[in-house]
């Protein structure tokens, strides 16, 4: 694809929001999520000429972001987190209902192996076959992961609901 300023701006304005949601779902830190999205687009700009057409561009952007997240994760796993930093990591805008809060918390308790393909499916709208290609897995493996992720989320929600009912009764 040709690298033009206008084309890049369209790309950024079309996908920055959804990539941010995915990045935030992966790292739960709005500053890091923003850094990941910026880095994704900067890398995309550098290699845009390697993309032949628009088909697959979204999947490519998600793959860059995933790789960058893995790189950042490796880098940060040795760092000590400043507790003051944690106070400001909440994003500005999201569904503030209790149910959404519970869902987000439940999602964070999922193993990475389940959370990532589920985020790609729910936020990216990719099929299991497409996700399999992105994660270098078999479609069966991806199906198992998203299925187990959903089952676990439902179980966690059910448990949370039951605990709330008990609290209300007592």
């Amino acid at each position, binding site marked *: 694809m040709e690298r033009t300023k206008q084309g890049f701006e369209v790309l950024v304005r079309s996908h920055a929001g959804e990539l941010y*949601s995915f990045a935030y779902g992966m790292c739960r830190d709005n500053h890091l999520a923003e850094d990941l999205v910026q880095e994704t687009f900067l890398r995309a700009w550098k290699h845009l000429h390697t993309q032949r057409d628009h088909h697959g561009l979204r999947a490519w952007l998600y793959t860059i972001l995933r790789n960058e997240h893995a790189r950042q994760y490796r880098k940060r796993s040795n760092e000590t987190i400043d507790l003051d930093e944690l106070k400001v990591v909440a994003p*500005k805008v999201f569904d503030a209902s209790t149910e959404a809060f519970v869902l987000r918390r439940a999602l964070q308790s999922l193993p*990475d192996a*389940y959370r990532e393909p589920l985020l790609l499916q729910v936020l990216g709208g990719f099929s299991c076959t497409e996700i399999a290609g992105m994660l270098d897995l078999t479609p069966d*493996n991806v199906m198992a992961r*998203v299925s187990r992720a*959903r089952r676990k*989320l439902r179980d966690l929600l059910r448990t949370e609901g039951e605990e709330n009912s008990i609290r209300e009764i007592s």
Partner: protein
Amino acid sequence: MNCLECRRLLMTEPLDRDVDFRHHLDTCEVCAREAERAWEFEGKLRDSLITAPQPGLEERILLARLLKRQRISSRIMHWSLAAGLALSLGLSGWFGHGLMNGVSGPSAVSMAVMEHIQDELDVLEKRYPITSEGLGQLLSHFDARLTGDLGRVNFADRCNFMHTKAVHMVLQGEHGPVTVLMMPDSPLERLEQIDRDGFSGIVLPTKYGSLAVVADHPEPVHVLAHRVQRAVSWEI
């Protein structure tokens, strides 16, 4: 498409537009109700995950490109200094602690166990109960035999593991499936805990090699390991 296939699809690709899937939902009331529930859940899940960035993200990206790859962060700069200091202190503390306690990283066997589980996650979903005869036949390839009760076994097969063969089983635990790997050609020096990517369990040395018991949810893995040890005898 039958009801089972339909329910499976509702868990794996609930928004699939497959014609057979849609046709089944049009003709099966029970599945249609289940689909409504699944779609409602998907909507809530998606809504809960959509998060808006700080205003101006797109402009910052466009500006960063103009400034030739300098990321424009909304973060306060002095955090970098604080993080640097914390990192220095953290690393010196970690190294000191590690040296004093003789801590070492996970063994190659433990890492290979996790890789194998991740590579074959789909078998956690298998639900064919394996009979004692089937298990006995599988174990006979390893000069081992079944001498006790393993409980319900959902899956069992021979797998390639670190250039050798291993027994890969999925037992039905108290709260869900539990992976058991018996690795006759992969000796281990001491018991190791696994706690990675949401999976936890143990890998322990045995007379024949090593044994791993790992789950993605809380399970009494030591009890299960003991059960496996008692139920399988090795001619070694």
